[in-house]
């Protein structure tokens, strides 16, 4: 196929992508976000599948069998396990306006400038080879398609090289759609849309190739595997076992797990470009499905290539493309080329944007801002940020190009992808640790990343250069640095028998994590670090009101803050942001001093533009900050913890309050009830008082008005008046007593009392009354003495009430009243039995109510106040005793009261 056709097709495809990107941005201007969908989000994540997947997987089957699958199983597992991790990262990045992995780590450890630089540098070093691999893939696929045996290219003749022009076009594309807004934390809708389309294209193209090979050239999957199985060399490749080693599989899977979030491009699409947090839920299964589909035909294509003798001289990496071409399907070949092209450029685009943001924000801008005289005009600052980002993009891509033309020509390419994975995996301890462990410090993070990187470099990168063959170099490989066997790059400390990747992974991660933990545990972070740690680890607690947990002490003038923001965002936009923020948080704008929250807000806004570390520098330049002491931060941290506890406490309190309210309502209800009862009681009392008063008045008037009354009659009336007066005063005393007991004003004057003595006293006092009625009153006294703690006078009153009641109710002339004392369990019981008419079962409880008798007596009205039993019950209650009646109608009744007895 001619150069021209391919180039024209490539350019048309690129123009198509331009169109899609432009369309998406155009729609966004009209408030329609085409990338606001979980499907697009998942497709953009599939930028994970690069040309390395597209061409390289097939190649790897030829050498390592099924081990390539580890690279895709890893992210699949990661999707399940890392969901909470990614969600947390997403939340943090949104609230802190973080725009890259370097920014993330730097922000976590106190918005530290040097940490940002380190991470950025390592990312660049780790990923330039990976980008260059994509460029190489484009070139080689181009060569396969055009039928040219690729000329051993030379950097000096770059102007003849198609890859160079592709690189230039990509630079333009990325600059156009990647640096439209100065705010790097803003979404690149156009780019994401084009990435999603590219993901679809590469999937369809690869599946098309697979279908063609499987069903066009062979009779289905079974056919290919059958034929391959006949050749022992091929059979091993698709059987799990001999080829892959356990350590190799494990390392590959773990590495790709980390890579799925730590690679700058993955971080870019899955975190920075994320539109809505809930898209993640769908993406965690869509993304693995994508990986599954794109991998179905890898092994069949690889086997088919090897089963085709004509392709003997072709690199296994090119089978996907070479097979259709060999059978003369040029159009299909072109489509497959476009698919591979998509895979390569989507990776280049996203990776470059992510890296350029990091390079610009962490390398260039801090230099720019820390040099004196940066307070330029609005336009020039704007320009310098955009230009620094554009410059970074150009430099990165050119570096990749140069790398591809020079170093890559000599180094083996097979595992470049995994080498890059290993590089970014070095951020894992600092990042994951920083997410969940508040004690992780900046020094720990720096040390761990540096240590990890050195080991990575020594065990993975260095050997690729050393294997070129000079005796001095192979000496290091065979006998270690300085001839020390323990320092052999592929067998550190004598750890032999692992593949290079697994070996490097083991040592770098082990020492990396160890360093992080040990250094962190032995160092203390400064105030800013502790504050950030608190924010990150407890992000879900802080996101609701990040402003309230602002710590900042110092003075800043509103004017300075305004002009600072205006410099980066333009006067209009910054004014809008400030006013809306002020309104939202009720910050008065009239004051000439800036509110601490306003300062924090502007820093966050600037972070989105220039990264947190630079933003901090800028804000510091216009504010007079007081040093925040560690104590203050600790206080704030403690306060936020206390806030949580207070919150818990509050919830508990509110529950208690609800309960208390219920109790109050109940109590109120009871009070109302009691009020009614009190009224009733008073009414009954007055009624009870009125009755003797009535007879007293009537009889006195009769005696007074009838002076001529017979002597005997008059005496009868007068004595009746005296009786009634006595009844009246007795009633008054009883009412007052009861009232005193019920109000709790009556105090018990307890002493140790011999109960027998008390009973004897009462029996003696009541004997005449009993005799008068012809009743027999007996007290069965014991030999042993029962001593009980009680109020002597009150218990005497109870005895008096009960015994006199009994006397009242026994039948005239044949009454039997017996009194017994007994001890049961921990009670001293006094039994007063009579042979009266008994108490009906239904009123057994009621008889202890006040004035019960007044309402419920039968024919003959009894004497007494109707308060005796109520008073007795009250007195016994006060002693924590019990009083009750046992009775059967006609068989008399037993009144029993008990007192605690130990």
């Amino acid at each position, binding site marked *: 196929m001619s150069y021209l056709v391919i180039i024209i097709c490539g350019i048309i495809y690129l123009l198509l992508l331009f169109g899609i990107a432009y369309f998406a941005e155009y729609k966004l201007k009209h408030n329609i976000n085409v990338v606001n969908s979980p499907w697009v989000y998942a497709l953009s994540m599939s930028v994970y599948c690069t040309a390395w997947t597209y061409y390289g997987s097939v190649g790897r089957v030829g050498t390592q069998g099924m081990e390539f699958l580890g690279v895709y199983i890893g992210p699949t597992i990661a999707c399940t396990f890392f969901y909470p991790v990614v969600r947390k990262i997403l939340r943090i990045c949104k609230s802190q306006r973080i725009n890259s992995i370097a920014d993330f780590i730097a922000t976590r450890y106190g918005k530290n400038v040097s940490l940002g630089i380190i991470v950025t540098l390592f990312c660049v070093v780790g990923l330039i080879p990976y980008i260059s691999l994509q460029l190489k893939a484009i070139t080689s696929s181009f060569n396969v398609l055009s039928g040219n045996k690729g000329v051993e290219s030379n950097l000096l003749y770059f102007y003849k090289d198609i890859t160079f022009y592709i690189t230039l076009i990509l630079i333009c594309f990325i600059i156009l759609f990647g640096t439209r807004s100065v705010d790097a934390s803003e979404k690149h809708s156009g780019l994401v849309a084009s990435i999603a389309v590219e993901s679809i294209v590469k999937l369809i193209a690869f599946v098309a190739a697979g279908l063609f090979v499987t069903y066009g050239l062979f009779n289905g999957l079974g056919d290919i595997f059958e034929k391959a199985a006949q050749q022992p060399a091929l059979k091993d490749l698709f059987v799990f076992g001999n080829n892959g080693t356990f350590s190799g599989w494990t390392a590959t899977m773990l590495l790709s797990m980390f890579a799925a979030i730590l690679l700058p491009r993955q971080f870019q699409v899955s975190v920075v470009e994320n539109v809505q947090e809930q898209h993640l839920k769908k993406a965690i299964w869509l993304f693995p499905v994508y990986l599954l589909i794109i991998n179905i035909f890898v092994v069949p294509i690889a086997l088919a290539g090897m089963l085709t003798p004509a392709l003997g001289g072709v690199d296994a990496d090119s089978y996907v493309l070479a097979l259709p071409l060999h059978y003369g399907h040029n159009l299909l070949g072109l489509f497959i080329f476009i698919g591979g092209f998509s895979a390569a450029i989507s990776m280049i685009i996203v990776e470059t944007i992510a890296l350029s943001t990091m390079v610009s924000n962490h390398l260039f801008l801090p230099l720019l801002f820390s040099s004196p005289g940066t307070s330029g005009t609005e336009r020039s600052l704007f320009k310098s940020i955009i230009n620094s980002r554009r410059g970074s993009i150009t430099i990165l891509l050119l570096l990749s190009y140069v790398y591809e033309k020079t170093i890559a020509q000599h180094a083996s390419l097979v595992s470049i992808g995994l080498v890059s994975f290993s590089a970014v995996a070095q951020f894992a301890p600092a990042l994951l640790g920083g997410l969940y462990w508040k004690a992780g410090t900046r020094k720990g993070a720096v040390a761990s990343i540096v240590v990890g990187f050195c080991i990575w470099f020594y065990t993975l990168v260095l050997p690729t250069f050393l294997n070129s063959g000079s005796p001095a170099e192979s000496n290091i490989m065979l006998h270690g640095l300085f001839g020390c066997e323990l320092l052999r790059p592929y067998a550190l400390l004598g750890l032999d028998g692992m593949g290079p990747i697994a070996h490097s992974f083991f040592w770098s991660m082990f020492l990396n994590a160890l360093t992080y933990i040990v250094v962190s545990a032995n160092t203390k972070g400064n105030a800013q670090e502790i504050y950030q740690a608190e924010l990150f680890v407890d992000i879900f607690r802080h996101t609701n009101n990040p402003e309230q947990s602002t710590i900042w002490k110092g003075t800043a003038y509103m004017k300075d803050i305004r002009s600072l923001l205006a410099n980066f965002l333009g006067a209009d936009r910054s004014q809008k942001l400030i006013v809306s923020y002020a309104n939202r948080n009720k910050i008065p704008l009239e004051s000439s001093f800036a509110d601490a929250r306003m300062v924090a807000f502007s820093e966050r806004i600037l972070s989105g533009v220039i990264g947190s570390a630079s933003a901090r520098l800028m804000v510091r330049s216009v504010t007079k900050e007081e040093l925040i002491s560690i104590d203050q931060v600790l206080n704030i941290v403690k306060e936020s913890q206390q806030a949580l506890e207070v919150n818990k406490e509050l919830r508990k309190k509110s529950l208690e309050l609800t309960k208390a309210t219920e109790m109050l309502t109940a109590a109120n209800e009871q009070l109302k009830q009691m009020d009614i009862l009190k009224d009733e009681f008073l*009414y009954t009392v*007055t*009624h009870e008082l009125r*009755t003797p008063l009535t*007879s*007293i008045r009537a009889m006195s*008037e009769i005696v007074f008005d009838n002076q001529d009354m017979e002597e005997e009659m008059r005496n009868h009336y007068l004595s009746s008046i005296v009786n009634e007066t006595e009844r009246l005063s007795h009633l008054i005393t009883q009412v007052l007593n009861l009232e005193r007991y019920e109000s709790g004003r009556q105090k018990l004057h307890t002493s140790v009392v011999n109960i027998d003595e008390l009973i004897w006293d009462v029996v003696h006092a009541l004997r005449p009354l009993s005799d008068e009625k012809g009743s027999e009153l007996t007290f069965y006294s014991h030999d042993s003495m029962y001593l009980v703690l009680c109020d002597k006078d009150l218990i005497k009153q109870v005895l008096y009430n009960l015994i006199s009641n009994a006397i009242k109710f026994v039948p005239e002339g044949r009454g039997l009243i017996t009194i017994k004392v007994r001890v049961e369990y921990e009670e001293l019981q006094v039994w007063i039995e009579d042979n009266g008419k008994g108490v009906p079962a239904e009123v057994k409880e009621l008889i202890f109510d006040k004035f019960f008798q007044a309402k419920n007596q039968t024919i003959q*009205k009894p004497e007494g106040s109707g308060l005796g039993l109520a008073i007795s019950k009250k007195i016994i209650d006060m002693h924590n005793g019990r009083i009750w009646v046992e009775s059967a109608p006609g068989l008399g009744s037993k009144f029993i009261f008990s007192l605690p007895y130990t």
Partner: protein
Amino acid sequence: MKKILVVDDDPYILMSLEFLMKKGGNNVMVARNGTEALDFINSTVPDLILLDIMMPDVDGYSICEYIKKTPKLKDIIVVFLSAKTKEADIQKGYDLGAALFISKPFSTRNLMKEVNSLLGTP
């Protein structure tokens, strides 16, 4: 001679009322509770009844209600004599058809006067 029935569960009050009514020149009968009162009016119809309300067995209201519902009894003049003093209780007494409601304690002279005027005797 008018027939008067006096009903009260307090023996002293009953005794006093009996004395007073007899002194007024009436034929006086006594009942110590509601049951006795009902037994009595079912055999002999009095012209006037002095009726207590709070009694252990049958209360005065019920007796009054019974009297006013029974055709041959409904002309009996009912006078309540009660320690109940609440407005509602007094109203209830009048609603049941009582001619008079006198609160205890009462003035004996006043009672005599009222009873005489109700009976139309001088």
